[in-house]
Every structure is written in structure tokens, then in C-alpha cells.
């Protein structure tokens, strides 16, 4: 039953652009992006228990790596892979430095990284355009086709991320990460090479995000440091995963979908107060729904509404 539903959903996703308008396609592309971000954060945050706020750093790095490469004449497809690679390499180095920190120290160190990268990009004006932003070469595709192209690209990336998540979950890496999350000292004692496992999780949390960043740059054609290194790109995936359930695969996906729906509603009604309402949602989530939406017992909710 489940597999048939999944198949149906996949077919629906593949055929959707035929019937949808460009606005819907754009929305769906963002949903795929959110799935990638949420699932990626889940590797280091949900599975391993290390509260990483570095997603924005990886996203921006991938965006700028891809953009600058394209600006230098590298073909688009190659530039995207380079963006992903740069994010992965950066995560390896950064991980070596900060993964030995625990708790608050790790969180804040990861948070500051995006700001540092933003500052570096701002000052290397010759390469990146600095604060004035970077214009990517225009694609020789008409608008509708472009919209569909990036929709499918993001979809494939999302599929790749899901596949990786499933693989990790079934492989001893996933098991080991869960051990680390629950008791890192005991995990070390039992033979888990925590250092390597954590680093792999951190790299996984970066590579698809960097790739998505590179896609994003080509998709929107113009990026600037404040945009792609925005701290919200670090906070939103966390909220999505908390909305769903950390550590699972469907959790982040459901969380991403719910989050996008909420965000659309908020955008339409509270343009200037967008971040503020997001903040309120986060607060409500932490205080009243600590186990996420998936933990809600829907049958009980329905019964409670019927009786009340």
C-alpha cells in the first residue's frame, strides 16, 4: 500500500509541471530545496545530535562557488558539482576544527562561520562582486523551460538526498551516529570511531546543501552575500526537522512541507513581519510541540474536538 502511494506521488511530481503554472512550479522547486536542506541537517543534527548552525555557510559557499565558476566560463553542470565539492571540502576542514567541541560551543562556532564567509565574500570584490552581488551568465532558455528545468534538477537532488539518508540509516554509519547521539563516550568505548563518523555526517550535511546553493545561484541569476549567507538558511532547516521528527527520514520531509505551507500563508499576510512570525512559530513549536507534528496523536485530537 505504502509503495503504491509513493509511486503515485512520484508520478505526480514528475508530471506536475505540465499542468501547473510557473508560480506553482516555483513553489514546488522551493519545496524540493527545503527537503534537501532539512534532510541534510538531519544527518548532523537529528542523527548525530550535534546542533549545527552551519547550513547557511554551506549554502552560500555552494552558491558562490558555482556562480564564480560559471562567471569564469565553466559550464553550468560542472559548476554545480564544483559547488557541491567545495562545500564538502570546507565541511571536512571545518569539522576537524569544531566537531571536537560539544553543545553550545559547537553550535555558536558553526553559527559564526556563515558570517565569516560573508565577510570574506564581501571583501573579495574582484572575484565575487563583493557587496554589489554577482550576476550569473543568462541561460539561453525561455522562462517556462527554465522554471521546469530547475524544478526537475532540485527534484533529482532531493531524491539523491533521500536515497543517501536511507542508505545511511540502514548502514552501520546510521547506527553508530545514533549511538554517538545518545552517549558519545560509551560509543567510543564500544568501538565506534566517533571522530570519523561525526565528520562524515558533517560532510553529508554540507554536500547536498552546497549543491542546492549552486542550483539556486543559477536559478535566480543574481546573488549577494547577505542573501545566500542569511542565517535563516541555518534556522529554517532546524525548524523543519523539529516540526517533523528528528532522526527519521519522513520527519524532515513532512516538516519541510508543513513549513513551506506555513511560510506561504505568512508571506501572503505579513510581508514585513515575515521573520517575526517565523520567530513566533519557532517559540510555539519549542514550547508546545517539542516532539514535532508527527508526535501529535491525531485520533486523540479529533476525539477531543468532537467532545469539546
Amino acid at each position, binding site marked *: 500500500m505504502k509503495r503504491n502511494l509513493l509511486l503515485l506521488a512520484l508520478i505526480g511530481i514528475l508530471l506536475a509541471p505540465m499542468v501547473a503554472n510557473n508560480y506553482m512550479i516555483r513553489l514546488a522547486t522551493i519545496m524540493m530545496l527545503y527537503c534537501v536542506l532539512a534532510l541534510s541537517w538531519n544527518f548532523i*543534527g537529528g542523527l548525530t545530535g550535534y*546542533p549545527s548552525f552551519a547550513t547557511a555557510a554551506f549554502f552560500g559557499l555552494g552558491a558562490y562557488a558555482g556562480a564564480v565558476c560559471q562567471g569564469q566560463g565553466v559550464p553550468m553542470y560542472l559548476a554545480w558539482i564544483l559547488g557541491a565539492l567545495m562545500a564538502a571540502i570546507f565541511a571536512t576542514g571545518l569539522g576537524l*576544527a*569544531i566537531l*571536537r*567541541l560539544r*553543545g*553550545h*560551543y559547537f*553550535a*555558536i*562556532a558553526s553559527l*559564526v*562561520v556563515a*558570517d*565569516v564567509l560573508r*565577510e*570574506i565574500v*564581501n*571583501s573579495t570584490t574582484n572575484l565575487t562582486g563583493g557587496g554589489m552581488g554577482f550576476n550569473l551568465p543568462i541561460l539561453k532558455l525561455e522562462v517556462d523551460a527554465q522554471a521546469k528545468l530547475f524544478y526537475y534538477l532540485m527534484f533529482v537532488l532531493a531524491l539523491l538526498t533521500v536515497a543517501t539518508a536511507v542508505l545511511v540509516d540502514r548502514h552501520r554509519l546510521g547506527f553508530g551516529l545514533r549511538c554517538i547521539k545518545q552517549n558519545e563516550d560509551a560509543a567510543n568505548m564500544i568501538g565506534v570511531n566517533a571522530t570519523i563518523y561525526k565528520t562524515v555526517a558533517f560532510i553529508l550535511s554540507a554536500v547536498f546543501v552546497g549543491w542546492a546553493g549552486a542550483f539556486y545561484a543559477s536559478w535566480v541569476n543574481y546573488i549577494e552575500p547577505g542573501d545566500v549567507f542569511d*542565517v535563516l538558511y541555518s*534556522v529554517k532547516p*532546524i*525548524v523543519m526537522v*523539529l516540526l517533523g521528527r528528528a532522526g527519521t527520514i519522513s520527519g524532515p520531509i513532512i516538516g519541510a512541507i508543513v513549513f513551506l505551507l506555513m511560510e506561504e500563508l505568512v508571506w501572503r499576510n505579513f510581508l*514585513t*513581519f*515575515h*521573520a*517575526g*512570525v*517565523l*520567530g*513566533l*512559530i*519557532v*517559540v510555539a*513549536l*519549542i*514550547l508546545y510541540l*517539542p516532539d514535532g507534528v508527527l508526535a501529535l496523536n491525531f485520533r486523540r485530537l479529533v476525539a477531543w474536538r468532537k467532545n469539546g
Partner: protein
Amino acid sequence: MLYLQILVNGIVLGGLYACIAVGFSLVWGVLNVINILHGTFIVIGSYTAYFAYIKLGIHPLLSIPIAAAILFLLAYAFQSGMINKVVAAPVLTTLTLTFGLDLFVNNLLIVAFKADYRKVILEHPLGVLTLAGITIPEDKLAAMGLALLLTGLLFWVLDASRVGRAIVAVRMDREAAALMGVKVKKIYALTFAIGGVMAGAAGSLISLIYPISPLNSLPFLGKAFVICVLGGLGSVPGAMLGGLTLGVLESFGALAFGPEHAVTLSFITLILFLLFRPTGIMGKRGYE
């Protein structure tokens, strides 16, 4: 001579930095909560000073009590209303909560006051002090002096008053303190409020020097964090030491690499300390 000037600049800046960080450090040390709102609290303090000057003609250095009062109430309300519920929760929870609160409050500030940078331009600026070839703007000097005074006041309160000793006790050992009759929840709320007060006061002082905007909240927070790591958590002398160190470092760093790289410089310092000396310059968990 140039180096001496840079050093003095750094020390003056450092005194202010100590005031910025001490409230943050106290909250982190006692509640084990990283208060993302701290930067926004500072900005609120700055706005209070700004409007007090514009509308009421009160000199920013004198509007400290007003800012302090506002922030005391605000912080106390936040803590007893919301943050108290997650004090024992894992890092991710508390961090995300204060993050969400900060998003909300910061956005409110942007809507209310716009993101444009404002500056307090004094009608009668205090002038410049020149000593042995070194120039120090008097308003900055006064700000630094007051900052040190306030920080010293906090130290005295923690050291000499009953409430202060209770706060230190909770920081050392929450359960033991509770067993001795300390109302831990109240202490938490009070400590958080004190953190807010120091932030507000720092904000008032800062309004003379830095441009005021809600966008400045995260950079202030970043500085506070670096200072905590440099100086050790939860101790006033630590915050002072960390603040002075950062001030001097930034001063010389600006000379060597240009002021645009301030964040990178402090981040590298941060990483180096976290890797090689996480207990800070003093090398011990500063319990005063």
C-alpha cells in the same frame, strides 16, 4: 607612538566590550542558556538612549537607568514566561527558542524603527582629551569609565549581597543551592533580568559610539560570545579580561588587516581558543 595610541583605543573599546559581554556571560554561566536575545537587548538599550536624547534631551550616559528598567522588566517577563520552561533542555532546544524570540523581537524593532542606521549626535560633544600625545575622545572615555563602573557594581553585588551569593551558588551547583533553600527559579529569572539590565546599560553607552540599528544585534552577540570564551564563563573579572583582550586585538587587527575583517579576526581567535584553551585566558573555570 602609534602603537600606544592603538593600544589605548583598544583598552577604551575593551572596557565597553566587557560591559556588553558580562550580562551574557552571567546568563550562560548560571542558566546554561545562550541568550540570542542579548544582542537585541543591547539594541533596545541604544534606542532608549537615542529617543531619550531626541525627545527628552537626556544625555545618553544619563539614560542608563531608564534603559536598565525597561530591559529588567522585559527580560524578567521573558524568562519566567518562557525560557524557564526549557532551562534543563538540550542545547538545541534552548538555542532555537531564544533564536525564535530574537527573530520576533528584532523584527518588531525593524517594523517600529526601520533598519536604517541612526546615530546619536550630541549637540554639545565633550571634546577630546590629549595625554602624552595620545588622543581619546572624552565621550568614549566617559562611556568606558561608566562601563567599568557598572561592571564593578555588578561584581560587588554578586560578591556582597545575599541575592548575589545565591546567584553564584546556583551557578556552582544548582542542586546543592536548592537544597540550601535557594529558590532556583527566582534566581534564574533575576539573573536573566540582570543580564538584560547590563545589556541595556551597555546599549545606552554604545549609542554614543556605534550606529544604532536592529541589524547590529548579531554582531554584538558574536562579540559577547568571543569575550566569554576568551575570559571564561560566568565571571565578571573574566568578562573584563576578555573584553579588554578583544578590544586590543581588534584595535591592532584593524591596523593590520583593515576594519572590514573584524569578524573574521575574532572568529579565528575564537576557534583557536576553543581548540587549544577552551577555559579561556585565565585557564580555569572562573568561579570568581
